């Protein structure tokens, strides 16, 4: 499921990226690569989100979070 649907304080593992080519590389280079663990730290105004990724915090807009395909950790 997309990262944008993961609940607050929940964790998931990245399994793939969708969407336009440039955006995909951009996200991959930032560290959204298969097997990486992500955590939703905060939902902000307009449902944008702050995610924890390998010890750092990234502010992400919702449209990008839709493109990141994850598996929730509970299901692993």
């Amino acid at each position, binding site marked *: 499921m997309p990262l944008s649907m993961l609940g607050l304080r929940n964790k998931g593992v990245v399994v793939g990226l969708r969407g336009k080519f440039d955006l995909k590389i951009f996200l991959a280079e930032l560290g959204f690569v298969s097997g990486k663990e992500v955590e939703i730290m905060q939902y902000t105004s307009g449902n944008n989100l702050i995610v924890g990724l390998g010890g750092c915090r990234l*502010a992400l807009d919702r449209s990008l979070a839709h493109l990141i395909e994850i598996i929730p950790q509970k299901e692993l």
Partner: protein
Amino acid sequence: MLTKEIDETASNVELVQKRIKVALAGNPNSGKTSIFNALTGMRQHVGNWAGVTVEKKEGYAHYGGYTIEVVDLPGTYSLTAFSMEELVARDFIIKERPDVIINVIDSTNLERNLYLTTQLIELGCKAVVALNMTDEAEHKGIHIDKKKLAELLGMPVVNTIGTIGKGIQDLLKEAVAIKEVKEPLSRHIHINYGAEVEEEIKKIQAELKKDPVIPKMFYTRWLAVKLLEHDKNVAEEIYGRAQAKDDIEKQVASSHAHIEKILDDESEIILADARYGFIKGLLQEAYSHRSFDRITFSDKIDKVLTNRLLGIPILIGLLWVMFQTTFKLGGYPTDWIESLVGHVSNFASSAIPDGMLNDLVVNGIISGIGGVVVFLPNILILFFFISLFEDTGYMARAAFIMDRVMHTLGLHGKSFIPMIMGFGCNTSAIMGARTLENKTDRILTILINPLVSCSARLPVYVLLAGTFFGRNAGTVIFSIYITGIILAILVGQLFRKTIFKGEAAPFVMELPPYRIPRVQSILIHMWEKASIFLRKVGGIILIASILIWFMTAFPKPKSDSQIALSHDEHILNSYAGRAGKFIEPVLEPLGFGWKGGIALLTGIAAKEIVVSTFGVLYQAGENVNEENDTLRNALKKDMTPMAALSFMLFTLIYIPCVGTLGVMYRELGSLKWTLFGVGYSLILAWLVSFIAYQGGLILGFV
């Protein structure tokens, strides 16, 4: 650092050989600029958000008889060249070929920072890794095995703390040592992309090596990887030069097809995955951390400051506090400076014998400069707040909180940072627009930025609002600022719907941990802004004041004229008066006459000069021994409150100052768009002032 004396007897040849060019590369907010400052003894502004350094900066360091030219590059996550900053950094590394690259790494965020390192490895650069902010990493319980890391990366690794200058000498030592080694690297590391990809890389390399020139100019493995990544710039460069262009192109195409068929993903993504895989393996061997709280202190602050409901109200509240403090607190020292200027003026007018010189000094120079210099306290306080926002890490949050709002307005969250910086000065704000990855977002942000009222326009508002609106002056000034922001939003939306159709790019930004700002850093920032301001006063504003005085004093009325001309009639007859009269018909419907016209014309040089011009126009010929309020009284006789309001609005909107125009031209890279910026601002200024003045008259205000 002390400069080691270069041996006097050393020949020029030796001097040339003893120069090394070093570039600082690293992720945004990894502390490159603090390392740069520690290396060179310079004082570049260091902030706590990604994108403080937007241009490369140069300085010099000295070590063991070497003169080391240090270049601070803008922060980049990779060398893929998405944003302007990445392009600047990459072009420098590839084209200028620094002797050594110092790769600055944020130790608290090793994994992501090493991504850039993997690309430097691929480039075959001579590099030293600076593990920066080791104190913070230690505090977090992170342990990095420096020796192991160096071995695995094939580069020396040095621990540093840029802010206090720790590890700087070691860094210089390693840089010099690496330069002296004759072979490219003591141990050259290859990142393994997996059997399938490696095979294709070899095939492309083989084609490249057949070319007579290419292998001598570039590192073929890197080229092969870049071609696999569909890198446009590299492809252009290679296909432009290579004799065996067709063979290479054919091989690259077939490799793409093969990889994407077998691994079922774009080759770029596969390569990025593999680099992170390499990093993962590296971390397993050289990195460990004590289990730490998943929720950091910064997360707790963010719970409140970026809260879904509270975020925006808190942001507005903080901005309100910023403006209130700037005006209220700044008012006290402003009064002291004002009375000081009054004393100087009185002293000068009594000390210098009556005549031309007296007139020039008192009515030209002192009233011109004095009117502007009184605003120094306000400007200092404003920049204190802007530094505070930058250094704590709140600026990145502010941009993010506003992203959704900005998006509905057709702008990008990151456009918000230049807007806040614009309250200080539009020139630095417009440069700050470089953090926007998307070109149309950037042009749009630059075009509307001058509508954000900078500190140079503040003197005009304080003078006019203080004169005409008495106790409501603060509210009037605040409304002018708000008007500017609303106009910026409306104009932005209009342009987005008509000229720059399409959506703003999506938002991604790293949120740095909150840091307590260093007093020193804030003071340096304030001092720099103050010195820029004072230099402006001593430079362009001084010259402008003298010129304005000259233009109002000449030509002298004929001595044989029967009746002595009044002061106004005299100015009207002067060069300035004639220019003002010429544009008066256009300004008449806005409520102010030729004197306002002259002030607006001169204000194009720098907006503070509007006040200087009023000083010269209204004070000349008056009794200078009167109270300091002469200017205000003279203004009251000449303008109505509605006209003053209309004038302030015009000042807010019309043509940015020459300095801002210069930066706009450079950043937009287009004369057409710069002129467009001038044109729309003039039309908008006239329309808004017209509506305000005529509307006010209809509603019965005067």
